[in-house]
């Protein structure tokens, strides 16, 4: 029985982990290129969730078609906030960008609250389930997970097979060196920020395909916290590391629950969180650059 539960939960964790990973790639990309910690990360996830909710509830648009819409809106938001706020603070002390991204997050929350109100909302998109014997998996969750993997692969190809991707990678490696080699560092900053926000808003769509309830202007806080753990786990400046970190985090969160449940007198959920942060602390101590980042 325990083995069955453990296997089922690990599978669920892997599926969820892919979405978590995707939801963290934008954070890592922005930090990797601009060295800006986007504290307002969760608010952009929330924007993606509301785009999906609104398209589905008001216009009947399938959540899969919300993915490109959210990505384009995310790119637009990213460019807007880069040129109006971030560009002016890029050389300022880190605290300034921290406060700026925090403020952007609060601003987005309040704007969404003005439009949609503060109620918790949800939508109901059901496309069947797959009974795997050990667990039952809704097709919408599987699509969210496959979508996350697909986007991660596309990002990999774009980074490694295109000139723009190479330019961005060169800025991550050494921005001054890239500038000397003729890379337009300013444009690379702007598009990296926009791409990071685009990915984050898109992850909001995928997260609601996974969990289509609890959509609220303040829903992003929990995802910001998880994203930081995942980003550090995989390497704060590596989007692929973040994706890998998401998979590991999903496995830890779901798998450890079953094991902790075997201990008498403990609440497993409390211990899974404890374990996640313990692992984060250990990685910070022994490999502060993350598991997949070169020293």
């Amino acid at each position, binding site marked *: 029985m325990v083995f069955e539960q453990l296997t089922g939960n690990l599978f669920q964790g892997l599926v*969820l982990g892919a979405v978590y990973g995707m939801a963290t790639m934008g954070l890592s990309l922005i930090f990797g290129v601009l060295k800006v910690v986007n504290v307002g990360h969760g608010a952009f996830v929330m924007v993606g969730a509301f785009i999906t909710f609104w398209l589905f509830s008001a216009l009947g648009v399938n959540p899969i078609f919300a993915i490109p819409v959210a990505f384009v809106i995310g790119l637009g938001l990213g460019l807007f906030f880069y040129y109006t706020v971030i560009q002016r603070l890029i050389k300022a002390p880190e605290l300034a960008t921290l406060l700026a991204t925090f403020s952007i997050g609060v601003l987005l929350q309040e704007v969404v609250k003005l439009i949609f109100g503060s109620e*918790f909302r949800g939508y*109901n998109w059901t496309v069947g*389930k797959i009974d795997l014997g050990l667990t039952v998996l809704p097709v919408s969750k599987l699509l969210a997970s496959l979508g996350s993997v697909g986007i991660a692969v596309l990002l990999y190809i774009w980074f490694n097979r295109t000139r723009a991707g190479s330019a961005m990678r060169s800025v991550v490696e050494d921005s001054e060196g890239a500038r000397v080699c003729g890379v337009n560092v300013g444009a690379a900053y702007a598009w990296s920020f926009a791409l990071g926000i685009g990915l984050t808003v898109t992850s909001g769509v995928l997260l609601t395909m996974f969990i289509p*309830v609890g959509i609220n202007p303040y829903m992003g806080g*929990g995802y910001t916290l998880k994203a930081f753990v995942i980003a550090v786990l995989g390497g704060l400046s590596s989007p692929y590391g973040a994706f890998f970190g998401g998979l590991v985090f999903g496995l830890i969160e779901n798998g450890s629950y079953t094991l902790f449940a075997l201990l008498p007198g403990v609440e497993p959920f409390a211990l*899974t969180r404890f374990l996640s942060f313990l692992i984060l602390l250990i990685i910070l101590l022994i490999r502060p650059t993350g598991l997949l980042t070169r020293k």
Partner: protein
Amino acid sequence: MKKTAIIALGFFLLAFVAGQAPAQAADSIDIGHPACLSGKYAKAGEQAVGGIKACVDWVNNEYGGVSLKGKKVPLKYTYYDCESNKESVTSLIGRLVTVDKVDVVFAPYSSGLTLRGAPVTEARGMLYMDHGGANNKIFQQGFRYVVQTIGPASSYHRGTLDMIHKIDPKAKRVALAYEDSEFAKMVMEGAEEHAKELGFEIVFKRTYPKGVTDMTPLLSAMKASRPDFVLGGGHFEDGQLFNRQMADLDIDTNAFSLIAAATLPAFYDALEYMAEGVMGPSHWEYGVKYSEQAAKSAGTTWIGPSQDEFVALFKKAAGKDMVPDYHAAEAGAQVLAYALAVEKAGSVASDKVRKALGDLQFMSFYGGWDVDDSGLQIGHTMVDVQWQDGERIIVWPESAQTGKVCYPMPTFAEKAKGKVAVP
């Protein structure tokens, strides 16, 4: 100089005579309220203010005012927005007592905010009436002036358990899964105690943290315990997630009851067919059968508007076509309790009104009202509602039923094919 001294002496004598005159009833009896009109409890707070205004309107205009010292005295309601914020609650209570000089303070919504204000009113010897704080712990602190109208958290699932015990004697296995919060813990401690009294077996008991985003591991473990029915929840957001992921994992039980979430229309809006058959305890629902006739049959006093009159007064107070929910009803019933107690005490002094409240028993549109020595509500019975074909039906207690319960509820697979939870 001599003229000034005579005038001063005249004022002194007038003041002395006024001080010796028999006490007169004031022009109004003042109710103060730090209300949650913004912040996380804004919805409940808006309902509470509407309910209070509706019943103040009824007392002043239908009842003719509160009888005090041979005079009919109107109620005056003063409220400020506490923004659902603990610090604001304490400062606003200070303002209401010292600047507005109110006669009674109505607590804000929620156990946490009610508890925060209690020491402030207690230190001033001011009556503090609780309509939105269900946590039993409020009444275990030794406060003398706190009096509850909402039912205590420990009683939330009593009706659900009594109902299942009656309609399905074979059902024995209960699962409890709830939010790791003070309120939900208190509800489930009460449920566990009552379940054991009725001979049920607790086969699963686990908590989940506030802000949980995925309950799959917990629900997988719960499924393995093969419960006959599930009691759970905490707040609205986790209740939505709980139901949704029960559906995702095909966890079918005979009954499923969620606190806080299941009674709200937004719950069904988000979950649609998945919410069919789901139950939830509620302090009050439109359709309950409390009436003057029911009070007579029960041998108790009736006061207040009828249910339909309350709804009309509430809409008038709210200024829009808003339907009152239990937050409004319990706040309104509190006004009626206070008015009756002042009449019985013949005074607005907190000590005397508190004593009168302790002896008071009555029925209103909200149901029964009676408190124990600690101020805890013991006279009010909760109702259980069930989603049946998209409508909230009161299924328990039998005396308040607007329809029969659908038990066992349809499975999630049946519901996905269009089966509704109609008995």
